[in-house]
C-alpha cells in the first residue's frame, strides 16, 4: 500500500530531511508516525501524497511510483488518498456541505450522486445537522470532522492525517481520534502523524518513530525481532 525503500530527502538549502527511511504500511493498517517537530513527519506525508519527490530511494503508494510519476498522474493518486491537516484547510466561504462536495466535484463525479454521498459522510462524522454551517460557525473539532468527511468522500484506501489533533482541546482530540479509529475499523488504512504520546499509548497500533530524519523505531519490526529473540 505505502512502501518507502531507503528514502533520502534533501532540503533545498542543504541538509537532509529524511535519512535512509524504509517502512511498509499494509492495506487496512493503522500506523502512528511520531517524533518531535522537525523530525521529518510532514516530509514523509508530503512524499506519500506526491507533493515532494524523494532525492533517492523509492516511494510507492497504492500502485504509483512517486519517483517516476508524471505531473498529470498526481491528481489521480490524490483521489485515492484522503488528507487531513492540523489547520483543517477548509474553504471559509463555503458551507460544510459545499466543502465536502468540492472534493467530489473536482473528480468530475456526477452531480446526481454528490448530494447523497456528501450527506452520508457528514452523517458518518456526526455533522449531518451542521451541513449548512460555515467553518467559522463551527468549533475546531467540528471543523476537523468536516475535513475528515472531505477526505472520506472519495472513498480513499488510505487516510493521511498530519497532526489532526494538534489544534484541538482534549475532548475534541478524543472525538476525532475515535473517528479515525472507526474509519480504520471499516477497512481504510490510516497514517497519523502526531507528537501526542498519550494518544499513541492509548491504542494498540503500530508506531513508527522518526528522529532528525532517521527512522529510529518501528514497532512492527522491533516487536517481531524482540519476539524472535525471546526464549
Amino acid at each position, binding site marked *: 500500500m505505502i512502501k518507502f525503500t531507503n528514502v533520502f530527502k534533501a532540503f533545498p538549502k542543504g541538509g537532509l530531511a529524511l535519512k535512509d527511511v524504509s517502512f511498509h504500511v499494509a492495506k487496512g493498517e493503522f500506523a502512528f508516525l511520531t517524533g518531535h517537530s522537525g523530525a521529518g513527519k510532514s516530509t514523509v506525508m508530503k512524499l506519500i*501524497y506526491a507533493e515532494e519527490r524523494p532525492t533517492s530511494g523509492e516511494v510507492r503508494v497504492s500502485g504509483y511510483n512517486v519517483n517516476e510519476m508524471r*505531473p*498529470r498522474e498526481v*491528481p*489521480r*493518486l*490524490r*483521489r485515492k488518498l484522503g*488528507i487531513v491537516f492540523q489547520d483543517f*484547510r*477548509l*474553504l471559509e*466561504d463555503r458551507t460544510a456541505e459545499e466543502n465536502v462536495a*468540492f*472534493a467530489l*466535484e*473536482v*473528480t*468530475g463525479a456526477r*452531480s446526481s450522486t454528490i448530494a447523497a454521498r456528501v450527506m452520508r459522510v457528514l452523517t458518518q462524522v456526526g455533522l449531518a445537522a451542521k451541513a449548512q454551517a460555515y467553518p467559522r460557525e463551527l468549533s475546531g473539532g467540528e471543523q476537523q470532522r468536516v475535513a475528515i468527511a*472531505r477526505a472520506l468522500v*472519495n472513498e480513499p484506501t488510505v487516510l493521511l492525517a498530519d497532526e489532526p489533533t494538534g489544534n484541538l482541546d482534549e475532548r475534541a482530540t478524543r472525538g476525532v481520534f475515535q473517528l479515525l479509529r472507526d474509519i480504520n475499523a471499516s477497512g481504510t488504512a490510516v497514517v497519523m502523524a502526531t507528537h501526542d504520546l498519550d494518544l499513541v499509548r492509548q491504542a494498540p497500533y503500530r508506531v513508527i518513530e522518526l528522529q532528525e530524519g532517521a527512522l529510529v523505531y518501528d514497532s512492527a519490526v522491533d516487536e517481531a525481532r524482540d519476539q524472535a529473540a525471546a526464549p
Partner: protein
Amino acid sequence: MNLTFREAILTFKRAPLLSVLSVTTIAFSLFVLGLFGLVVINLQDALHNVEERVEVVAYLLPGAPIEATAQALKDIEAFPEVQSATYVSEDDALARARAELVELRDVMQELERNPLPASIEVKLKPGFRDTDHVAAVAERMRGFGFVDDVRFGRDWVEKLDRLRGLAAAVGIVVGAAFAVVAIIIIGTTIRMAVLQRSREIAIMRLVGATDGFIRLPFLLQGAIKGLLGGMVAVGLSFAAFLLINRYLLQSAFFTQEQAVAIIAFGALIGLLGSTISVGRHLKRV
C-alpha cells in the same frame, strides 16, 4: 462545464470587491484606448474629407473641338485612378465664379468677354489621392492636344501625404503603447485575483483536482471580466462622445463593428491575462 461556469460566476459573489475592481480596471484601460481610438477615427474622417477635395483640373485651349473633348472625357473616366471627370464649359465657369466670388460680382458684370477657359475636373478614387498618382494622372492629361495647362496643387497634396503618414505612425505607436499598458494593468489585476485564491487552489490540488480543472473557471472568469470591462469602456466612450458633441465639436463614434471589436479585445485580454497568471501560479506551487 456546468461546474466551471458556476465556479466562475460564484467568484463574483465571493469576492465582489476584487471583481468590481478588475472590471473597472479593464474598463478604464480600454476606455483610454477607446478615447484614443475615437481621436484616430475622427482624424481619419477629417483627413478623408480633405482628400475628397483632391482634384486635377485640366484647362482647355479656347475653341477645343466638342467631339474631341467628349472623347477625352470618356478616356479620362476610363483611367483606373479616376472616380469621375466633369466637363465645365466657359459659361459654367463664369456662372460659378459669379456665384462664388461675390466681392467681384461688379467686375464680372462689366466683362465684355468671358475670360475663363473651359476645363475638365477630375476626382480620383480613394487610395489614389497621393502625390504620385495625382502627378501621373496630371501627366497623362497633359498629353491631350487641346489641353492648355493642368493644375492639382502639388504642395498641398504633398502636405496631405505627410500628414497622412504622420497620423498613421502616431496612431500605431501611441495605440500600441496604450494597448501594452492596458494589457499590463489588466494582467496585474487578474494576477491579484489568482493570488487571492491561492489557498483555494492549494486545497483543490490536495483533493485531486487536475490543473486543467483548476484553470478553466479562471479563464472563463477572466474572459467575462474582460467582456464586462469592454462593454463599460464602450459605454464610457459613448458618454464622452456625447459630451464632446454637445460642447466641443461634431465628431464620429465607432461603427458597430469597431465597438464589438473593443469588447472582444477586452474579453481576449481577460482570457490571455488569466491564462498567463494561472499558468505561472500553477507552475510555481
